C-alpha cells in the first residue's frame, strides 16, 4: 500500500511533466512539419543540435542566450531540411536522416575544439532554474505538480493550444494544412506551396531546438552526443498516435512521460522487478500504442512525404 502510494505520488506526476516536455516540443514540431506535407524524422537531429548549441551558448553567454541560440540552431536545421526537401525536392526521409547523422557528427567534432580535452561530453554549464509560481503552488494537489517547474515546461504546455490554434483556426494554419493535403489545389488558389512548407518546417526545427535546449540546459546541465536518446522519434510516434494534432500528441507524450517517471519511481522504491525491464517499459508502451491501439485508423496528411514540383 505504501509502495503504491509512492508510485502514484505527486512527485511522479511532476516528473512526468518534466520528462514529457521535450517530447511534447518534438511532437509539436512534427505536427507543424507533417501537416504541411514534409515528413520530418530529423526531429531527433534538430533536438540534438539545439541541445549542443544551447550548451555552447550557455558556456559563453549564459543560459538564456544559450536557450535562444539552441532554438535558432534547431530552426537552422529545419531550414536545411526545407531546402533539401522542398527546394531541391529530395526524398524527405533521406534528407531528414542526413540531418540526424550530421547532428551526431558535428558536435563530436566541435566539442574537443571548443573544450580541449573533452570528447563527446561537454563540461557542465549554467542552467535555467526551476521557478515557483506562488499562486499555483498554493493550490493543494495541482500545486505539487504544476507549481514548481522549469519555465520551459510551462512554455511547452502553453505552446500546445497555441500551435493547435495556429493550425486549425488561423489563415496560415488552413494554408499550411492545405499544402499538406493537396499542394496542387493550394497552388491553383494562389497559395505559395514552397513558402508554406518553408515556414512550417522551419518552425518545426525551432520547436525541436527548444526541446533540445531544454534537455541540455534545463533538464541536465551538459551536452552529450547521445543525450536525446530517441526522444525525437518518440515525439514523432506521439504525433502519429495523436493523429497529427497537438493536443492528441501532448496526451501521448504525457503517457510516455508517465511511463518513464513511473519506472524511475519504481526503481527507487525498490519494486522487485529487474531494472532492465522497468527501463524498457516506456519504449514497450510506445510500441504497443503505435502498433496495437493505433492500427489502421491513423490518417496522415494526404501529401505527406511527397515533394511538390511545379508543373
Amino acid at each position, binding site marked *: 500500500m505504501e509502495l503504491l502510494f509512492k508510485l502514484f505520488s505527486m512527485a511522479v506526476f511532476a516528473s512526468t511533466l518534466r520528462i514529457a516536455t521535450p517530447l511534447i516540443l518534438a511532437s509539436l514540431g512534427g505536427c507543424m512539419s507533417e501537416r504541411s506535407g514534409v515528413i520530418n524524422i530529423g526531429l531527433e537531429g534538430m533536438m540534438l543540435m539545439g541541445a549542443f548549441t544551447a550548451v555552447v551558448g550557455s558556456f559563453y553567454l549564459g543560459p538564456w542566450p544559450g536557450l535562444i541560440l539552441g532554438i535558432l540552431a534547431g530552426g537552422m536545421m529545419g531550414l536545411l531540411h526545407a531546402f533539401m526537401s522542398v527546394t531541391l525536392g529530395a526524398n524527405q526521409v533521406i534528407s531528414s536522416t542526413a540531418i540526424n547523422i550530421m547532428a551526431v557528427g558535428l558536435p563530436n567534432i566541435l566539442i574537443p575544439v571548443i573544450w580541449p580535452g573533452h570528447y563527446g561530453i561537454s563540461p557542465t554549464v549554467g542552467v535555467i532554474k526551476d521557478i515557483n509560481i506562488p499562486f499555483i503552488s498554493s493550490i493543494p494537489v495541482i500545486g505539487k505538480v504544476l507549481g514548481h517547474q522549469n519555465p520551459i515546461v510551462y512554455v511547452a504546455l502553453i505552446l500546445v493550444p497555441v500551435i493547435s*490554434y495556429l493550425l486549425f*483556426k*488561423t*489563415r496560415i494554419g*488552413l*494554408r499550411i*494544412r*492545405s499544402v499538406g*493535403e*493537396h499542394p*496542387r*489545389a*493550394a*497552388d*491553383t*488558389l*494562389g*497559395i505559395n506551396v514552397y513558402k508554406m512548407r518553408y515556414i512550417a518546417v522551419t518552425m518545426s526545427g525551432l520547436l525541436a531546438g527548444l526541446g533540445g535546449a531544454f534537455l541540455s540546459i534545463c533538464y541536465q546541465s551538459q551536452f552529450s552526443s547521445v543525450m536525446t536518446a530517441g526522444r525525437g522519434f518518440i515525439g514523432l510516434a506521439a504525433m502519429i498516435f495523436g493523429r497529427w494534432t497537438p493536443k492528441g500528441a501532448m496526451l501521448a507524450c504525457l503517457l510516455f512521460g508517465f511511463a518513464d517517471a513511473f519506472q524511475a519511481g519504481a526503481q527507487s522504491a525498490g519494486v522487485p522487478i529487474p531494472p532492465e525491464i522497468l527501463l524498457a517499459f516506456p519504449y514497450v508502451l510506445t510500441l504497443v500504442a503505435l502498433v496495437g491501439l493505433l492500427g*489502421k485508423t491513423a*490518417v496522415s496528411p*494526404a501529401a505527406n512525404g511527397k515533394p511538390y514540383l511545379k*508543373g
Partner: protein
Amino acid sequence: MAAIIRMENIIKTFPGVLANDKVSLEVEKGEIHCLLGENGAGKSTLMNILYGLTSCDSGEIYIKDQLVEFSGPRDAIASGIGMVHQHFMLIPVFTVMENLILGNEPVKGLKIDKIKSEKILADISGKYGMEMNLHAYVKDISVGMQQRVEILKLLYRGADIMIFDEPTAILTPQEILELYKVMESLRQRGKTIIFITHKLKEVMEISDRVTVLRDGRVINKIKTESTNTRELAKMMVGREVLFSTRRPEKRAGAEVLRVEDLYAKDKRGQKGLKGLCLNVKAGEIVGIAGVDGNGQSELVEVLTGLRRTDSGSIKIEDREMAHRNAGRFLAAGTAHIPDDRLLRGLILDFPLYENMLLGFQDQKPFTKGIFIDFNKVRQWSKGLVEAFDVRVPNVNVQAGSLSGGNQQKAVLAREFARDPKLLIASQPTRGLDVGAIEFVHERIMQARQNGKAVLLVSLDLSEIMNLSDRILVIYEGKIIAEFMADEAADTEIGFMMAGGGKK
C-alpha cells in the same frame, strides 16, 4: 461585342514537343466558347498558360484589352480568371467552406471569420441557384456537388471568366444537364465561359462559338450554329471519322462468366460489392454503366483475382473461381485490360518486350529451364507490336516512353495474345484520343466477333452504349437494371445510374 480575352501567337514547347504553335484565341464577353481538340492537341496547355500555371515561350495575352503577364494563378485570379479543373482541386478532408475560402479567407484578428464566410458564401450560392451544405466534408458529397464547389470557388473569387476543363467527363447525363443549366445562368449574369472538350455533342449543345485545335495549331474558329458534328470531327481529327463502331449481328453463345451474389470489400474495408449478379456469354459484350465509385473497380479486381471475395460465386465456364489468385484467372482464360495502364497495365521502367512477356513468363516457348529466352521474347513482341500498330522504333524502348495511345495498344496486344475466353476491359479508352479510341473499339468488337465474352466497364456512357449488346447498371455495389442495347435511352440509363430506380 468586344473580345474579353485575346491570346496572340502563343508558342509553348515542352522537351521534344511543340504543344502550342502560334495559337491565337479570341473570346467575347458573355459567350460560351468551346475549345475543341483531341488529347494532346494543346487545349490544356493553352488554358494552363491563360491561368498562369505554366508560362509560354512567346506570345501575348490581353485581358479586357490590357496586356497581362501572369507569373502564377494568383495573378490570373486577380484578373478575374478562374478554372474548374478536370481533376478537382479540392481537399477531401476539408469542409466545403474551407475549400471555398482557402487562399482568400475572411479573418477577424488572427482567426478565420466563419460567420462572415458563411454569410458571403450563402449569398453567392443562393444567387446562382447552387445551394449546398457548407459544413459537409468534400469527401462525403457527390461528384456533381464537388463540381459545384469548384464553380462556387471561382464565383467567390469574383471570376468573370471561367475555364471549364472537360467538366462532363465524370458526370452522369442528368448531372450534365444540371451543369448546362448552371452554365446558362452564369452566362445570363454576364460571365464568360471557356469550355474545353473533345466531345462534339457537347459543343453543339452548349457553345456559342468554337475554336478547334489540332497538333498544337488552331484549325478553325467558327460560330457553332453554322457547323455540325461531322464537320467539327473532321477539323479535330483531320480526316473522316466513324461515329459509332459497326455492330454486326451476332448471336450470343454459351455462358462463359457467371457471377452470383458476390460480396467484396472496397479499399477502405467497407462493403464494395453487395450481392452482385451478372453473366456474360460468348460473343457478347456486356457493358457496366455507373457513376464512379459504385463498385466498378472492386468488380473488375474480384473478377481478375486481384481482390478477395467475401462470399458468392464466380464461375468461368462452370469452374468456380472465387478465392483464386490472378494467375489462376489468367490460366482459366481471362484477359484484363486494366483501367490504369500505368499502374497495372505496364511496368514503365521495363523495356517493351519484357512488358509483353508479363503473364507468359513461365510458358513455353519463352522458358529454357530456369532461363528465359529473350531472343524469342523480342521476336514475338515484335510481331505483336506490328499486329497492333504500336508505333515504336524497336521493342527495347522503355514502356514509359510511349504515348498513352501506344501504351494502351501494347496492353491490348499482350492481352489479346492470351487468346482469352473472357476479356475484362475496364475503361479501355481512358485518356486516349479519337484515333486510338477507334482502334480500341474495333479490336473489342473484333473479339466479340471471334466469340469472346467481353465485360466492358466504363464511366463513359456513350462508349458503353456504342459497344454493348447488353447494358447493366451498377449502383452501390449491385446491378440494379438491365437494358438491351437497342432499347436503351441514355437518359433512362442515367436515371438508373443515379440510383433512380431505388427510391
